[in-house]
């Protein structure tokens, strides 16, 4: 049996869960799939997920899961996994998964493969994952006894590929025992630092800058290009970390997710954390001095060279 651990908060499903179900369906080749929905008010989410072609959906409610803590999730899921005895435990590679899944796997002394982008079936099922900032890709196999934990990169599987069942899957509840004193973290309510004044998700065109811009004063070059193209300016994480552009202009896993008609990446190498925030863009242009930069793997048009020579030339060409 393959177990998918859903992610939900207060009855709101994280859509990456659907992607994980697609991954489970690819991996399963006939093996039954169970979806586990941890957390309070999961009944609605469970009904929603029961539409997928899976054997059953299991809800798991316990005081130890509210609010989320890595200690609470580790203890409760260890108990639930023990009862369900899956061969694989699949999760979306979200920040929450990253917070507890390695601990859970370590406690159970089982393999965990993270940030997986594809499955390679064969005599020995291999999992594909990026390495060295996306410069290389590895086929990896888990070692040791089951269950094997696998987390899927956001966007690795497409939600619209999910197989739906002819009738809703059965929904049942599982109960666990957790000692509340095992929970050492005391979380406060989540908050947004600053109200997002800029909604990049609605932008039609975006000019985005990365490390290749080299200096803060050079941001002006990118701004001029944005102006010429009628685009919003955005950046990869290091640029916002350095304070060269405000955090609200950051695209990537820790910033905004965008899907403009045109995305121009200037001096952005294309680390996974950035790509997950922009790979839904319609047309991607990459300008980078490094021909091996991973950004070229997802770009429609690429120019290899010095952006300080190329960008002024583009501005000139647009004006003509």
């Amino acid at each position, binding site marked *: 049996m393959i177990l998918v651990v859903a992610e939900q908060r207060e009855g709101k499903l994280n859509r990456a869960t659907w992607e994980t179900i697609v991954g489970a369906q690819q991996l399963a080749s006939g093996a039954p799939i169970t979806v586990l929905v941890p957390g309070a008010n999961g009944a609605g989410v469970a009904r929603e997920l029961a539409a997928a072609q899976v054997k059953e959906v299991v809800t798991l409610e316990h005081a130890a899961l509210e609010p989320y803590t890595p200690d609470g999730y580790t203890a409760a899921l260890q108990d639930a996994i023990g009862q369900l005895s899956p061969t694989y435990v699949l999760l979306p590679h*979200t920040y929450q998964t990253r917070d507890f899944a390695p601990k859970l796997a370590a406690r159970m002394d089982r393999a965990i493969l993270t940030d997986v982008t594809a499955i390679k079936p064969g005599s020995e099922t291999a999992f594909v994952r990026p390495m060295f900032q996306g410069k290389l890709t590895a086929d990896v196999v888990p070692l040791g006894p089951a269950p094997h934990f696998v987390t899927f990169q956001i966007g690795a599987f497409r939600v619209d590929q999910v197989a739906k069942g002819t009738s809703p899957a059965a929904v049942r509840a599982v109960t666990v025992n957790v000692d509340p004193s095992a929970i050492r973290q005391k979380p406060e309510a989540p908050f947004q630092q600053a109200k997002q004044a800029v909604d990049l998700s609605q932008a039609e065109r975006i000019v985005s800058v990365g490390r290749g811009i080299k200096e803060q004063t050079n941001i002006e070059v990118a701004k001029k290009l944005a102006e010429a193209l009628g685009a919003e300016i955005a950046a990869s994480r290091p640029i916002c970390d350095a304070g060269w552009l405000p955090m609200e202009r950051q695209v990537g896993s820790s910033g905004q*997710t965008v899907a403009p008609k045109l995305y121009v990446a200037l001096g952005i190498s294309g680390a996974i954390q950035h790509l997950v925030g922009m790979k839904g863009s319609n047309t991607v242009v990459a300008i980078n001095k490094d021909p091996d930069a991973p950004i070229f793997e997802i*770009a429609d048009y690429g120019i290899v060279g010095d952006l300080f020579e190329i960008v002024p030339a583009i501005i000139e060409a647009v004006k003509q």
Partner: protein
Amino acid sequence: MKIAVCIKQVPSREWHPRLNDTKTWIRDQDANFEMNEPDAYALEEALRLKEKHGGDVVVCSAGPARVAQVIREALARGADRAIHVEDDALASADAFVTSDALASAMKEEKFDLVLTGLQSDDQGFAQVGVVLAEKLGLPHATIIMEVQAQDGNLRVKRELEGGWFQWVAMPLPAVLTIQSGINQLRYATLKGIMAAKKKEIRKASAPASASPKQKIVSLYVPEKGKKTQIIGGSPAEAAKELVRRLRDEARVIS
């Protein structure tokens, strides 16, 4: 406060990947190495906590002999001493083996706080800090953007997705994985570089018990998902051609 910072040495950003003969790992001898960037932020945070609360910063690294380079760099930036778990096999070790190696060398030190980067720029597991916490029996929090330590307690700002944050409190000792950008990095001064030469690096051997939990069967240059059209020529020519295609082919600008 006695603070440990776990750092990793990784290939530099400018490095062009080359594979070994079995195509299961890189050609180590071709690479230039540097300190893993998120670990550099973890080190900086440790140094700032020491400046505020007093104590010691001990840098810990698990890797082959070459790792001494980043250990020296960390000492030059202000760490007080170091622990080097030295073993050639640690160069390509998975997160469990690395955590085992670190935990065995760190356990007896009874650190108040352990910091490390949220993930490494080489294998990118995003696991070592969390697994290490479990092996040391300590609470943890990940992807941290601010650290407040007071009276044996810790309050940290954890980054969630999409611009959300959350404060989390927990008792010390604890393990934190630090997000890049939490602070502004300092560079080593000449005085620091000189002082580092006299600082202690304790060598430890990797525990024999650790067995890997995963195996790389094949490593390769990624297959291109899309057909990228590379536009050549002089900057002026390339720019002109790009604009033409954006107008006529992609129709995304007017």
